[in-house]
């Protein structure tokens, strides 16, 4: 057993878990944060993507004990209260989801892609960066549009914050 101390969506968590507990299991089964999904178990599909200390990571292949001391953000912690993150808004506006199963991972990855490309994003870059996330419903067409639009909104938001 391991003692795991984490900040999850801003909340301090202290749990005793078996050594083999995966981060995704801790999130889903112990903390009830079922928005993070398991679609493959081999880190191929990306449905389990969360942010660990601000970086997108596939939580199906990370041990909970391994990330003790970290700050984890899941899809449930992305919005600020009732205000959706621009990436969430963009997925809705651009119909970037259908069944919704890959969506939390896509959104978390989308935020990470934008964060890592402050210079801006073109379609080719977005498609290449999305290689680790599989969607079977949308054909990616609208996901790519959503991320491009959110990148603009996030930049505009950052600018307006900086100006305050």
């Amino acid at each position, binding site marked *: 057993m391991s003692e795991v101390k984490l900040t999850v969506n801003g909340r301090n968590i202290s749990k005793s878990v*078996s050594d*083999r507990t995966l981060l995704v299991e801790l999130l*889903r*089964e112990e903390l*009830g*944060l*079922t*928005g*993070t*999904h*398991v*679609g*493959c*178990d*081999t880190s*191929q*599909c990306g*449905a389990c993507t969360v942010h660990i200390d601000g970086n997108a990571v596939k939580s199906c292949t990370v041990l909970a004990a391994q990330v003790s001391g970290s700050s984890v953000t*899941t*899809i*449930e912690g*992305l*919005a600020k209260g009732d205000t*959706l993150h621009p990436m*969430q808004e963009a*997925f*809705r*506006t651009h*119909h970037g*989801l*259908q*069944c*919704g*199963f*890959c*969506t*939390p991972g896509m*959104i978390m990855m989308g935020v990470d892609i934008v964060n890592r490309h402050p210079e801006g994003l073109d*379609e*080719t870059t*977005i*498609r*290449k960066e*999305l*290689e680790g*996330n*599989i*969607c*079977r*419903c*949308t*054909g*990616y*067409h*609208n*996901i*790519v549009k959503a991320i491009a639009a959110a990148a603009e909104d996030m930049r505009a938001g950052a600018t307006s914050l900086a100006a305050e």
Partner: protein
Amino acid sequence: MGAEGIGARVVRKEDGRFITGAGQYTDDVFERQMCAAVFVRSPHAHAKVVSIDPSAAKEMPGVIDVIVGQDIIDAGIGNLICGWAIQSKDGTPMKMAPYNVMDPGTVRYVGQPVAMVIAETRAEAEDAAEAVDVEYDPQPALTDFANYASGPVVHPGTADDNMICDWQLGDEAATDAAFASAAHVVEISLRNNRLVPNAMEPRSAVAQFNRAEDHTTLWTTSQNPHVARLVLSAFYNVAPEHKLRVIAPDVGGGFGSKIYIYPEEIACCYAAKRVGRPVKWTADRTEAFMTDAHGRDHVTKAKMAFDADHRITGFKVDTIANLGAYMSLFSSATPTYLYATLLSGQYDIPNIYANVKLVYSHTTPVDAYRGAGRPEATFLVERTMETAARQFGMSPIELRRKNFITQFPHQTPVLMNYDPSDFHGLMDKALAAIDFDGYPARKAESERRGMLRGIGFSSYIEACGIAPSQAVGSLGAGVGLWESAEIRVNPVGTIEVLSGCHSHGQSHETTYAQIVAHRFGVPMSNVSIVHGDTDKVQFGMGTYGSRSGPVGGGAIAKALDKVEAKAKLIAAHLMEADAGDIEIEGGELKVAGTDKKLAWHEVCLAAYTAHNLPEGMEPGLKETSFYDPANFTFPAGTFICEVEVDPNTGVTTIVNFVAVDDFGIIINPMVVEGQVHGGLAQGIGQALLEGCVYDDEGQLLTASYMDYAMPRADDLPSFGLDHLEVPNPNNPLGVKGCGEAGAIGAPPAVINAITDAIGTNDLQMPATPEKVWRAIQSTKMPMAAE
């Protein structure tokens, strides 16, 4: 139409929960005392099960129970069935072999369950599953199904030649006569590659048994929870229908693979009762690859006869369809009535004959996958048309135009009676959308860069909204294919729509609400859609075959007719007017030509206070419809694909792809475009990337995302879409259905484009870089020999 009515591009109501992680899928169900199930699965494609010893597993930490096949048989739970009975051409019935939940004697595909371990946690169950000692006696396996008769027998005594059914459709003698007098004959031989549906949510089941009530609740990843309950009750003896509640909550994609009843959910229901605790099983991805029903898997030889003017006079088709080790729930329908009935395509073909041999093999069961039979038919027809055009030295556009059906309704020689569309109009729009006039310049530019550019066409037609029930019953269906809807108007005027269809990504919560908003002028936010729970909705047939729009939507429209009629009677009574003079507009009921009006909610409240209703009228405002359409609907379209092939590597890049469809009336263009995008991705995936591979011993070589090439974002282009709206004359909304079109029309467009680029007629799917490179080398061979 109003801002939210039919035709409006409204963002989805259901998105709120999905984008915040608040969706609830089956694996998100956590019940008190819940335990985990893991299946022990066969590592052999064909083996006798000599013995199963669970004793060591039972001693492992956390293990609650181990269940084997004989336990389930002893409990009186029946075999799985195929629900569509067909006959061979000699009149003998199809040969359906026993399909046990866990066969205690023989395993017939890799991944077939042989035992079930129940433990406190999934990890403990996985550990214990490793400790179940199963002794197998491996046997030779049949995977080369085209040579079915010479292979090992899958079900001795039932089908000793591995043939399930030797089925035919059409007039063989007349078709042969057409060939005898043909000016040209074009022959083709092709394979439709086997696919894994790969819904992103793996299949899952949670079963809970309430001993005091003798009642079972099953949460499951189902496209049709009512059919699941019916089959589990009536055929498998899992629980009586009124003592079984099936809930299909949020479902993460289906594509056909979640239509069927599988061994695992039956076993979970049995296990929950046996251990007295809720039992959850969720597939991992490799289990999904091994056990979700696969799709397609045909080999076909066909020939098409033409007269001297290049008009088609006959089409003769021989297909062998692999159904795998067992007959899945609708497996017999897919390569027969869903395939051969579409072999006329968009063309006026006077004589068609199809012979389809359905065979067993030692592979995962095969059943309907997105499009189901129609992609296979379209691939054959459109590859044949392309090959014919090249043989004749004609433009493939001209050959198609010469043969397009232009008079409707059109009776084909293979059962279908097509309702109106405009095939020339679809081709015109597609040519404009891809800038066909600019193609030669683009090709020349590619050649300057040393690249090969090709263009490929595909003009598909499909049959959606399969019905009427009487007709499908006469063809062997075990169920009716109507749909139900119930409209519950609450006293405050909000409206609940209960549908027997099921949404697993198709956006029903939005589009169905739009139908209601369109009719009454109430805001969509006042409408909620209820589906997926057999305790809430009385009955329905679920969602597949693009039936939610034409059949499910039709049922809603019919129920709304009844609500509207009653609301008008109440309003007329309250305003002392004639019901015929009441108009509903913008959420108000008005007396035409006067300023008298009542708000929608005032009439609803009056229906429930019942203080002042017309003489003899029952209180309340709730109506139901069971809608059984008069005919299928026939969406159609023309897709054009433009590719660039690198001759040095064989890598194909899709540089332009346009899809122009006639889906009839469109309820929400945004949703319809999304459906087309997804279908195109699956069709392009089949053409370029996806293929399920078994080795000679029946091992599944493509059992993970590291081995099976799923289309990723950088494998696909952005698509160009357009549409025509020729209303369907037979259903109340004029809709035709859109969910499968992309998967049906895309594969031939892509393969026709690549073969055009590299100058061959012979290229099998998936057109991987290696295959394309080899094809390029073989086309060079004669030149090298000169």
